[in-house]
């Protein structure tokens, strides 16, 4: 059988580092082929090289057995290759239709919107995709934006589709729908390259290629492998999926929130009468589908957003409405969900990011000047301790892969916080090795006597880490449950807005 796509000896270097090293890869017609590997293994880089977005230093690409030159996305599109990028490439100010048709016409002056509409409604109908073509993309929830990305590729008649972590931003329900659509595409002869960190999704593919540090470690038939084997290949060691949580009696109360209410930009209620408390040696999990107030809750707790009503007590002191700096001085550490926008300054070096926010501390300065030596020493320490994959401490944080960028944030917050850690989606988009690592670190801090508030969309994470789980829905807490006496299904009901039935 001829391959739909074949890559031979592909090598891609970025300044000073090798992202893809002599990669060989092939894709059969009608198959789902997973790319699996750690953060920074080179999956996105390989995809971008196939799509002609990056220019490989060496290597040859074959489409249907013929050698082809892919020097730009235009060549890729001509050969029927489509790509959905890891981070959306959409224009929020455009409608769905405009996002799909922009740049697809090669002649004429008018927009030919009517023809496009016809073609698109045919595609949507045949796959059962529901989107409003005239909605503005900024109005759409992220899950829907994913359909727009997929439609962009289908509209250009892609026969080979690269999906780079499409489910990272989808709810479990949306992911299921996506997999149905992917199955339908394969049935029609499209070939799919799928990148995902979620093992359950990897196991739905036909074959898997495991990448480690830019090299192909193995290509396996999915039916002949197991999640354990894949993870072993990926990180080169065994990873335990359930971290052991020692039983610890909660100590005195650290954070108490009472009747917290907050409004959004347009005056709508985003947090409604929230009350909970966290004690030393305790992890309070926050469950809920993204966008139900978790982000706003963390913003209020770390001082970025002003509450409208309610009390926040930190070790007995009312801290509602204090500035982030005042809260940091009181030992609050915050791991925000948007790494590159809120957690780091991408242009700053790792060393600078590690002291960001604490740059005034006498530890990091000599008089008015920053103590570069002390900061660099600290950074080298942290890079070793947290095993951050980077050439040295002067690398810009924006150049790090997602997992390594997250390690920088965790290192900074764990180093400076004392007593309370707020972690919003700390494992999103991370590979299983790093997830395990982050979980261990959180449990270690719990053991040291920290109080931790941890939000996650992965219920299994919360069940293995949290001592209690608060479920949020539309800005309210639907109930606070004990993971030892509650099932995932029961939490699922609360997440969908059902009230807690009697249990406390």
């Amino acid at each position: 059988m001829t391959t739909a796509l074949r890559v031979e000896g592909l090598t891609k270097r970025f300044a000073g580092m090798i992202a893809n090293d002599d990669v060989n890869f092939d894709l059969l017609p009608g198959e789902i082929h997973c790319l699996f590997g750690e953060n920074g293994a080179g999956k996105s880089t390989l995809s971008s090289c196939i799509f002609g977005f990056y220019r490989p230093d060496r290597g040859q690409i074959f489409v249907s057995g013929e050698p082809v030159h892919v020097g730009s996305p235009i060549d890729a599109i001509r050969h029927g290759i489509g790509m959905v990028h890891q981070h959306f490439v959409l224009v929020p100010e455009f409608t769905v239709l405009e996002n799909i048709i922009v740049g697809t016409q090669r002649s004429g002056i008018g927009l030919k919107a009517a023809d496009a509409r016809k073609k698109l409604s045919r595609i949507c109908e045949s796959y059962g995709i529901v989107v409003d073509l005239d909605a503005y993309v900024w109005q759409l929830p992220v899950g829907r934006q994913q359909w727009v990305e997929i439609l962009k590729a289908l509209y250009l008649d892609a026969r080979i589709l690269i999906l780079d972590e499409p489910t990272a931003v989808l709810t479990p329900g949306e992911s299921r729908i996506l997999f149905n659509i992917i199955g339908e595409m394969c049935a029609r002869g499209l070939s799919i390259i799928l990148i995902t960190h979620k093992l359950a999704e990897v196991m739905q593919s036909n074959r898997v290629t495991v990448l480690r540090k830019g090299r192909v470690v193995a290509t396996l038939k999915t039916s002949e492998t197991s999640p354990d084997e894949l993870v072993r290949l990926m990180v080169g060691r065994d990873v335990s999926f359930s971290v052991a949580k020692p039983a610890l009696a909660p100590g005195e109360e650290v954070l108490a929130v009472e009747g917290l209410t907050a409004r959004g930009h347009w005056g709508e209620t985003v947090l409604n009468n929230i009350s909970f408390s966290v004690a030393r040696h305790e992890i309070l999990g926050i469950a809920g589908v993204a966008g139900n107030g978790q982000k706003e809750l963390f913003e209020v707790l770390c001082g970025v957003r002003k509450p409208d009503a309610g009390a926040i007590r930190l070790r007995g002191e009312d801290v509602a409405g204090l500035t982030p700096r005042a809260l940091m001085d009181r030992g609050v550490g915050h791991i925000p969900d948007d790494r590159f926008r809120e957690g780091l300054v991408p242009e700053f070096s790792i060393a600078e990011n590690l002291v960001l926010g604490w740059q005034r501390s006498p530890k990091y300065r000599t008089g008015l000047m920053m103590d570069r030596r002390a900061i660099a020493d600290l950074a080298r320490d942290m890079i070793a301790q947290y095993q951050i994959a980077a050439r040295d401490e002067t690398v810009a944080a924006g150049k790090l892969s997602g997992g390594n960028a997250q390690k920088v944030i965790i290192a900074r917050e764990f180093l400076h916080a004392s007593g309370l850690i707020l972690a919003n989606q700390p494992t999103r988009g991370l590979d299983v090795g790093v997830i395990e690592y982050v979980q261990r670190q959180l449990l270690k801090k719990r053991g040291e006597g920290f109080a931790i508030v941890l939000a996650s969309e992965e219920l299994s994470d919360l069940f293995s880490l949290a001592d209690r789980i608060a479920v949020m829905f539309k800005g309210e807490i639907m109930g606070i449950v004990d993971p030892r006496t509650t099932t995932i299904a029961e939490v699922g009901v609360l997440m969908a807005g059902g009230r807690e039935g009697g249990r406390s």
Partner: protein
Amino acid sequence: MSQLFHEAIIISILASTLRIMTPLLFSSMGELVIQRSGIWNMGVEGTMLTGAFAAYLVATLSGSLWLAVIAAVLAGILMGAIIAFMTAVLRVDHFIAGLGLNLLAGGFTLYWFQSYIRGRAQPTFSGFEDVDIPLLSDIPFIGPILFSQRALTYLALLAVPAIWFLLYRSRHGLELRCLGENPKALDVKGLSVTARQFAAVTFGSAMTGLGGGFLMLGFSDRFLADFTAGRGWIVVVALIAGNWKPKGVFIAVAAFALLEALATHLQVLGAKVPHQLLLSLPYIASIGLLMGLRLRPGQPARLGVPYTRE
């Protein structure tokens, strides 16, 4: 003050409003195209100045005003090509590129001007005359305001709907707006971001140069140092005040021109209000507008951010 309400005065104020608007309209519509493509061009002033000087040079040398107009456009294209090369190709910081160009244009036009007039009386030309449109210009009140203007004024007024059509109804406009909002979205469709930004900047600068040319040919008979006197900056403000929309920019330009026309007339009539205060009104109004309204801001998301792939 009450003399202001005489019909003749009102007609005169409104007619000069339209005349003052003309160069600003050309330039601001050109800049709208440029900024919508993501290039924050700060070289408007220099481009207008160069256009004005080119028009002066050709008008006095050849005696043909239309050749002078063409010269202004060509000067604009040349300036645009320089800015485009620096910003779209070399990816120099847009502010630095524009400010550098302004300095260059100021010094260069002055130098050329002085060597051109050395040792002789400064040559002059006679600028554009009003064109009375038959019948229409005889309509009372409206006729003298709208239908007794310079030919280029009609063209400038037509430029507003034309640019609107380009931006919102043509595929080129969609691609152009895409450049300003998210150039990568165009790049992944296989279109060259650099080539399109280059085209947008040279096209827009041609219009900007034309605006400078009209400033020369419609208002004056000679060149002076710093001839444009900050009009390029007014264009920059008009874009912000107009929220990067053709209609909004048109209104901003019209408001500015009306206030300037009022100021000049009041001065002639001997009013006590300081001229400078009146002239600052449009700026104050636009800042107030920006602060007061909670509009979805129309500023292109990637305005002024050089685009690279890796």
